[in-house]
């Protein structure tokens, strides 16, 4: 709302003393006039079944134990659908189907033909993009702007990219002959359900493997729609199997003897459990785990674009992003000015109905995550940090969180050290590049980082010293199927995307 504002130039020029910069008394009013009317994406034509079963051997089959779980829309807290709870029997059936498909059909196909299936799938994702985007938004709470403009197009692009590799693999591994591993067990998170599925399935199939994939228990629907696409594309039975369920189902996949490789994206905590479970087996594995990305801003940064980058870094997908730039490190000289600009920008973020085309920040994915974030907000305040939240209105129902920044934090604070996985940014300052590098690296994580400066040589210096798998310079949270992604240290093992994303799915002879 508009508070005291200096409206006319006369007020400011009448012999008043020179204002200091930034002039914090001057408020920009982003709320009082020309409010955008609601612009909901129509979900009328999207069909979500009342009940979904596993997709095994090309068919939707009921779970052996007959148990189902519920998926809710986190923006309304209403039940969207029921889906099968996978047990070890279901997983076993799926692994056997995948093994059979691997032996009988998929490994016998030429790379060219495998690629053509992937191209078909890419096209069908594009054709059903609107439906998939709406479904993703309803099931997971992310804004339709993102599912429409980021998740779904990138998922299709991933299949398109890896389709082209299927008959060119010998060029990817100099001096070696790549061979598929066999059956891949893949477990994906709830933050980018369809996109993570694409990251997992596309390279696995391109290299000649078959898969058993488990989507997250809060966001299973697009994976099951993807199963329909596999059917429609005529993909041989058993090449892709989708088993739904929660942690126990995932554990059954990890521990199944018939699985040759595990690909997991999720928390570092679970990643460590998986790595431990795989001890002593010969299964290959890739892990994409958590992060606490430093976003380093030098005083010569392009400041207005930096503000936008900070917003993208932490508020993209409600902050449910493992590579989020959740630790902002600002060079002292511009920190006051930058924070002022950041606060202004935060006031223009629209939090609300994920299906509204103007929504910037949707619903927190689940009640559990919502509670976890709130707990961290409390921890931050109790640790003595200064909290600032944008003043936006929140819907009455559903799990929503205001964009939040914490200033006055120290390296030892829990909100600085631990992954919150929500729209919560901590802000620290630094004076020299060395101090920035030290703060950036002072974490067990190493997934992604950002650097903002107009000076090219500084980007290379700092970029080399900061230990993380992705270095976004003068940009943040950009993704592309050709671009490898993955962590250093406790942020994971292996890369997904690009040529490097083929390695985890082949053995080299």
């Amino acid at each position: 709302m508009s508070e005291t504002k200096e409206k006319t130039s006369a007020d400011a020029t009448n012999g008043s003393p020179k204002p200091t910069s930034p002039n914090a008394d001057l408020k920009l009013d982003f709320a009082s006039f020309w409010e955008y009317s609601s612009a909901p994406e129509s979900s009328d034509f999207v069909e979500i079944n009342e009940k979904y079963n596993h997709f095994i051997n090309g068919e939707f089959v009921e779970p052996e134990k007959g148990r189902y779980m519920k998926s809710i829309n986190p923006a309304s807290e209403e039940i969207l659908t029921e889906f099968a709870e996978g047990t070890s029997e279901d997983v076993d059936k799926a692994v056997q189907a995948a093994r059979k498909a691997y032996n009988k059909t998929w490994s016998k196909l030429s790379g060219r033909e495998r690629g053509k299936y992937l191209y078909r799938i890419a096209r069908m994702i594009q054709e059903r993009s609107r439906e998939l985007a709406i479904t993703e938004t309803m099931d997971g709470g992310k804004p339709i702007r993102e599912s429409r403009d980021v998740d779904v197009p990138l998922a299709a692009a991933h299949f398109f990219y890896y389709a082209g590799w299927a008959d060119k693999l010998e060029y990817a591994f100099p001096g070696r002959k790549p061979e598929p591993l066999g059956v891949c067990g893949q477990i994906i998170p709830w933050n980018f359900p369809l996109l993570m599925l694409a990251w997992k399935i596309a390279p696995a199939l391109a290299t000649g493997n078959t898969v058993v994939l488990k989507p997250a228990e809060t966001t299973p629907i697009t994976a099951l729609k993807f199963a329909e696409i596999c059917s429609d594309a005529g993909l041989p039975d058993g090449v892709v199997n989708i088993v739904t369920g929660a942690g126990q189902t995932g554990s059954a996949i990890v521990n199944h003897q018939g699985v040759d490789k595990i690909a997991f994206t999720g928390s570092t905590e679970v990643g460590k459990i998986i790595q431990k479970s795989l001890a002593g087996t010969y299964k290959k594995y890739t892990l994409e785990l958590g992060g606490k990305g430093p976003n380093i801003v030098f005083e010569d940064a392009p400041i207005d674009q930096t503000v936008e980058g900070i917003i993208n870094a932490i508020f993209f997908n409600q902050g449910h992003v493992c590579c989020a730039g959740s630790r902002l490190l600002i060079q002292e000289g511009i920190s006051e000015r930058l924070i002022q600009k950041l606060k202004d920008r935060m006031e223009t973020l629209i939090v609300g109905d994920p299906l509204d085309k103007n929504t910037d920040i949707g619903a927190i994915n689940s009640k559990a995550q919502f509670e976890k974030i709130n707990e961290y907000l409390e921890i931050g305040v109790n640790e003595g940090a200064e909290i600032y939240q944008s003043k936006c209105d929140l819907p009455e129902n559903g799990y929503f969180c205001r964009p939040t920044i914490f200033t006055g934090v120290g390296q030892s604070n829990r909100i600085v050290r631990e992954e919150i996985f929500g729209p919560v940014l901590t802000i620290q300052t630094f004076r020299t590049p060395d101090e920035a590098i030290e703060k950036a690296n002072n974490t067990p994580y190493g997934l992604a980082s950002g650097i903002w400066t107009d000076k090219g040589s500084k980007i290379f210096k700092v970029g080399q010293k900061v230990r993380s798998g992705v270095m976004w310079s003068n940009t943040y949270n950009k993704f592309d199927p050709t671009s490898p992604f993955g962590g250093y240290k406790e942020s994971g093992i292996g890369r997904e995307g690009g040529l490097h994303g083929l390695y985890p799915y082949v053995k080299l002879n």
Partner: protein
Amino acid sequence: MNKVSLPDFNQTIPIDQIGVEERVARLNSRSIKKESKVQGLKLALSMIDLTTLEGKDSEGKVIQLCSKAKKPYAPMPDLPTVAAVCVYPNMVSTAKKALNGSNINVASVATAFPSGMAKLQVKLDDTKFAVEQGADEVDMVISRGEFLKGNFSFVFDEIAAVKEACGDAHLKVILETGELETYENVRKASDIAMHAGADFIKTSTGKVSPAATQPVTLVMLEAIRDFYRETGKMIGMKPAGGIRKAKQALQYLVLVKETLGADWLTPDYFRFGASSLANDLLMQIVKQETGVYQSSNYFSND
């Protein structure tokens, strides 16, 4: 003028081109529907500087334009009028007469528009003539050649001198961003203009391509925002040239709303320099009222 220490214009404020364009793309994804659309369309109409700047301009054409300005669409008498009519200096008195009794301002280009390739005295005389003829607003051009040469103090002094020659008339400073090429130049020229006394900064003459673009406008709006924070003084913004469609106009308004806020969403601080935009806005407004898609046959070309 407020005593604010002048920045060193030899220092360049870094601007990342891709970042600016991504921000614009994101702002363009705003969906303006229903009431907010009608409100936006009418607001845009009220912000137009209805413009004719051709060598073949006649008194008849200017008079016709002025009647359009006063009553954009006769069947809907409650529509807002445009903000101003913008003409060459020798048409100012004609426009002034034709707009008599309305709140619509007369804006005149001056200072050897559009190239600005003339001596300062000629530019000052041009300005004074326009003001004497009754111009409420003067749209000057900066000396792009001197700017690109790095002669920033020349540009600054020239603007300050024209500002003085304007007297009470509002000064809009045209940067001709199509010739400045980089966003960093646009930013620097904006800062020079504002510090030298501009009341408005304006993108283009309309005679150079590209004319107004949204990324350039965003950069200028951000310059205005920083200047406001620094001095407390609100400067207006006018993109001009190439804005023909209602949808574009709404996108510009989104830029303003989310960069500077509600206080700038008024003809006092934001204008469109355009001629054909008015009709497209009218067609969209009528469509919103009637639900029927419109034909240009039913709207006067002026």
